């Protein structure tokens, strides 16, 4: 413990030096702006700004990039809440209740709760990262391909079970998302699947055009022509403060989201995305009034926002301790470290203590900077809603096009966004949830690769999934969830979801319609 504190002192002496502090500020501001711009997420932001970090020393470069990452996560929640446009996939769940709160005139409290929850989760999870990284990393090392298959299946089934509408519909959407994830070159055999002559599909369909299309464009399509367009809120500064009830409802959600996000974050995968989905499902499950979810429940903002920020720190555990990127963003940051001649892995902490502990300390600093920046600026962000909708939606459309195009510099992504917009529009008309599509798309390559690796390891025997305790436990849980969730379909009985009033809520696009 004393050694940890000494190391932290070393870290703060680096992180609080003026040159590093300036880059931490710069990273947070740039990241927040990147996150606020609809359609431009942290991945695109970090990728675009990566070359700018090449001229810096390794510690400063990492602090800058981490600041952009955090800032974009904060900023992403703003567009999700105000415009129902997720800055990136992790903000998808925030869209649901955050935007519903906006439509009820509670945009300010939603933004404030998201900022405070993110600050709390970010700070606590850095403590967790600092203290628990070594033992947690060693536990994550026990996960082989069979455990990943079981974990991913469990995650999808849990999401379907805890979702508000019909389970077969949610599972169908998850399967559709997984199918979309099959497009592109099969990494094991090199087969180019479902390409239809488009070489741009070689790397598969990107998450950004799908998420922007399903959530952003479909919202524009549903609302642009309404005879009564979404009301333009003009909140005053004092209206930004959450009510006492909203504070009470958020406290435990923030706490649960923090713990959940960190635990999910340390497992390699798209942790910050999964954590927000799982957190939303848990909050809904635990709520005494689950029927409020989807209609502006503050817990639906507090939980997922805390979870995805907590998972951001958790995701650095495998990256820093093992040299294994836990998702596309840590992968880009890993590339930045390698550009500076640093080999990430178990020896990093011993060989580069100034970089490791300076990075850890800069996370504390970054969270404080973001809270200072975001809470006072919440009022400015809310002003976006003062723009009349006939002018706002064309602007969102332009930002979406640029954001989608910027990721790969390809108009194919713009086409994908348009197709996904139509799909999202139709699915919401028919009361299907679109969030499982995004999760399925993200998980598909990992699920397929893990399944085939598992079978290759076991010489084609499926017994590998039941002879390994962790995998068998998770699969058993998944099977129980599947049977429970499909029981009402066959028995026509009432399950807990219906008793709790969770049955088939109207789709978000239908809200407020005549």
């Amino acid at each position, binding site marked *: 413990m004393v050694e940890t504190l000494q190391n932290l002192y070393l870290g703060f002496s680096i992180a609080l030096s003026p040159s590093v502090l300036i880059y931490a500020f710069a990273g947070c501001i740039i990241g927040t702006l990147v996150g606020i711009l609809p359609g431009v997420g942290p991945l695109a932001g970090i990728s*675009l*700004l990566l*070359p700018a970090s090449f001229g810096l020393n390794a510690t400063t470069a990492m602090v800058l990039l981490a600041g952009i990452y955090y800032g974009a996560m904060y900023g992403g929640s703003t567009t999700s809440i105000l415009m129902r446009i997720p800055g990136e996939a992790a903000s998808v769940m925030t869209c649901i209740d955050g935007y519903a709160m906006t439509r009820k005139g509670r945009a300010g409290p939603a933004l404030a709760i998201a900022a405070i929850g993110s600050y709390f989760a970010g700070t606590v999870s850095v403590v967790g990262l600092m203290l628990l990284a070594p033992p947690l990393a060693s536990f994550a090392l026990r996960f082989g391909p069979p455990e990943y298959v079981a974990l991913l299946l469990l995650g999808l089934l849990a999401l379907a079970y805890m979702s508000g509408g*019909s389970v*077969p*519909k949610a*599972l*169908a959407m998850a*399967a*559709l998302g*997984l*199918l979309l994830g*099959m497009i592109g070159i*099969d990494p094991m*055999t090199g*087969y180019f*699947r*479902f390409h239809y002559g488009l070489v741009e599909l070689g790397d598969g369909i990107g998450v950004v055009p799908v998420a922007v299309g399903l959530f952003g*464009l479909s919202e*524009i*399509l*549903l*609302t*642009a*022509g*309404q*005879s009564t367009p979404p009301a333009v809120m003009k909140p005053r500064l004092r209206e930004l403060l959450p009510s006492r009830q909203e504070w009470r409802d958020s406290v435990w959600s923030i706490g649960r989201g923090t713990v959940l996000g960190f635990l999910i974050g340390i497992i390699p995968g798209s942790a910050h995305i999964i954590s927000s989905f799982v957190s939303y499902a848990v909050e809904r499950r635990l709520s005494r009034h689950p029927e409020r979810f989807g209609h502006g429940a503050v817990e639906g903002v507090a939980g997922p926002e805390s979870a995805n920020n907590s998972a951001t720190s958790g995701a650095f555990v495998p990256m820093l301790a093992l040299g294994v990127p836990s998702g596309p963003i840590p992968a880009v940051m890993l590339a930045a470290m390698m550009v500076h001649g640093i080999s990430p892995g178990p020896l990093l902490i011993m060989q580069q203590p100034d970089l490791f502990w300076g990075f850890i300390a800069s996370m504390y600093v970054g969270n404080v900077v973001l809270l200072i920046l975001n809470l006072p600026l919440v009022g400015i962000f809310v002003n976006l809603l003062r723009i009349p909708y*006939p002018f706002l*939606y*064309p602007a969102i*459309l*332009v*930002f979406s*096009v*640029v954001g989608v*195009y*910027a990721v790969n*510099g390809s*108009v194919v992504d*713009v*086409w994908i*966004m*348009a197709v996904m917009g*139509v799909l999202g*529009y139709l699915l919401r*008309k*028919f*009361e299907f949830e679109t969030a499982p599509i995004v999760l399925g798309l993200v998980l598909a390559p990992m*699920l397929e690769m893990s*399944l*085939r690796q598992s*079978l290759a390891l076991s*010489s*084609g*025997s499926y017994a590998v999934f039941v002879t390994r305790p962790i995998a068998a436990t998770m699969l058993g849980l998944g099977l129980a969830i599947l049977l429970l969730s*499909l029981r009402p*379909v066959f028995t026509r009985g009432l399950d807990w979801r219906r008793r709790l009033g969770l049955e*088939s809520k109207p789709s978000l696009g239908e809200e407020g*319609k*005549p």
Partner: protein
Amino acid sequence: MLTRDRVAGVVILLFSLAVMWETRVLPLGNFHNPGPGYMPMLLAIVLGAMAILVALGGGGSLPLRSLAWPEKRHALAILAGCAFTALAMERIGYRLTVILLLGFILWVVERKRPVVVVATALGLSLGTFYLFSTLLRVPLPVGPGRF
């Protein structure tokens, strides 16, 4: 009776069958050694099965004819704008494409005054180009005359 869930279930079932048909050109492998077509086929079967459940359980959902499309004119116009953007952006450049897109939406669809349309279209087009291309160094396509 035609209900929303029944129609949706049938459409998704047809889509899953189309995926199965498309998968025929990929090597399936076998149960113990899956090939590149194995997972898509498995997922298409799961999708089809769920679609059947949605259709079978969809008797109680709202009738199809109750579905209203009051926003269809706007939606079609916006989609046409998206298609135009995708087709034109790399041919005539980002700035000109966005000016035309916004001109179409604001003038033709939203019936705004010409002065407002021109100011908004020019401001957003040039402003976003400056922000992304100049400040953030995102390579956006330029058209004839480097515009």
